[in-house]
């Protein structure tokens, strides 16, 4: 997934769309908005972006899960199988992005990149509702896909690269 921080206005549509699409319990969320303010008036720079599970290549949650409930499916998406999860909390402790939470029913839950929609050829809910079209979803392994081309053309960053997780959400920056 590629997110353009220059286009994002921080409206939280992605957050609400996700909660509706995935029946996220009230009081929880799988994605959220961060606003980073840099400098002070008159030289202020504000960066807005939507954050969520980074579906890391080297996912610490998958490594630390004692039952294999956290796993990487074909295509690189990290998923949790609810009836294999024992709720030990190891994955929550191991995530540098703090993107997981304990569902009130006990198991651990997080962003799935709307796996059920992708299987049908649709886009994740957050991407499909974005009013500024700042999110792009596609195959990074395909060198001709829209997301690969964006990363060739634009400057980008990832979150906490020093954690060594090789995250898969790229933020386009100035």
């Amino acid at each position: 997934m590629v997110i353009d921080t220059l286009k994002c206005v921080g409206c939280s549509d992605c957050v609400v769309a996700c909660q509706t699409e995935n029946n996220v319990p009230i009081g929880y969320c799988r994605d959220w908005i961060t606003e980073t303010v840099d400098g002070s008036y008159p030289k202020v720079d504000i960066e807005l972006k939507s954050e969520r599970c980074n579906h890391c290549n080297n996912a610490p949650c998958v490594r630390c899960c004692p039952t294999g409930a956290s796993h990487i499916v074909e295509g690189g998406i990290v998923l949790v199988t609810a009836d294999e999860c024992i709720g030990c909390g190891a994955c929550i402790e191991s995530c540098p992005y703090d993107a997981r939470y304990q569902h009130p029913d006990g198991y651990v839950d997080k962003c799935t990149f709307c796996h059920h929609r992708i299987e049908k050829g649709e886009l994740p809910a957050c991407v499909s509702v974005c009013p500024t079209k700042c999110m792009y979803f596609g195959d990074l392994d395909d060198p001709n896909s829209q997301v690969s081309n964006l990363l060739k053309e634009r400057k980008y960053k990832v979150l906490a690269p020093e954690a060594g997780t090789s995250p898969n959400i790229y933020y386009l920056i100035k």
Partner: protein
Amino acid sequence: MQEEIFISGRHLPKIDPFLEIWHWQISTYLFLGGLSAGILFFAALFYLLGKENDMKATIKTATIIAPLALIIGLGTLFIDLSHKLYFWRLYTTVRITSPMSWGAWVLLLITPLSILWVLSYSTEIFPSLNLKFSWLKNFQSFLIKNRKLMAIALIPLSIILGVYTGILLSAFNARPLWNNAILGPLFLTSGLSTGAASILLFSKSHFERKIMSKIDLALIFIELFLITHMLMGMYAGSQVQLEAMQILVSGDYTVMFFVFVIILGLLIPAVLELTELIGFKVPIIIPSLLVLMGGLIFRIVMINAGQLTRYLY
């Protein structure tokens, strides 16, 4: 340049503003697990060294703590799970990369083994105990014959149990305070030290007390050395580790760490055990209880302080 982050649309219970996933259950379990690892290690070691008659507390009486502590510890672990009915999923798979999976399997082996060890000595620990059924007597004599095998199995299992309580935490690279390789040996040493301290509480012979307090003294020094190394490693580490170290050195947990763990839990018992070894009379219960308290508070500090440290937000 000043950077300020505002987060909206995010309010995860038990995760923001800091993690509260693991509580007293985990610290209690880590303490009890380390304690039983220590007791079982010394019992098996001195049994194999042929000290059965000289070290009665180490090999016989004190070992009744081990199964009790393990069962209570397993109970607290179970309380901590939020999806309890699925706990059996731990035993449908072996995950080499997950320390928790290692721990679950080791506990499955060492808990019954510790019960069998106590059972094999039950008539000596409780002289008035009368094994009523003949099959129970037969089973006990079978256990007595195989004590050596049990001891040989207990040594690696207790070491893995002791190390795993630390590796469990150091595997989480998202928590900079935990993410250092020294935590495994440090928790093992601390576990062995609390094990030796609780054996001292049971011991009645002068010879045995002298050996165990010498061992405990050595372990306390190794532990101090490892804690120094842990802090040195963080001091030379990256920004997140420097921030993590601040919690122990000049932050929320400084008093708890230095007063209760370093001074009361390590330095004072070391001094008391030294004076005892020189020949002054010190009631053994004081350094032993201090070591046990220090071990418990060390784990509480590590669990709580570790969850304050994070990468983002």
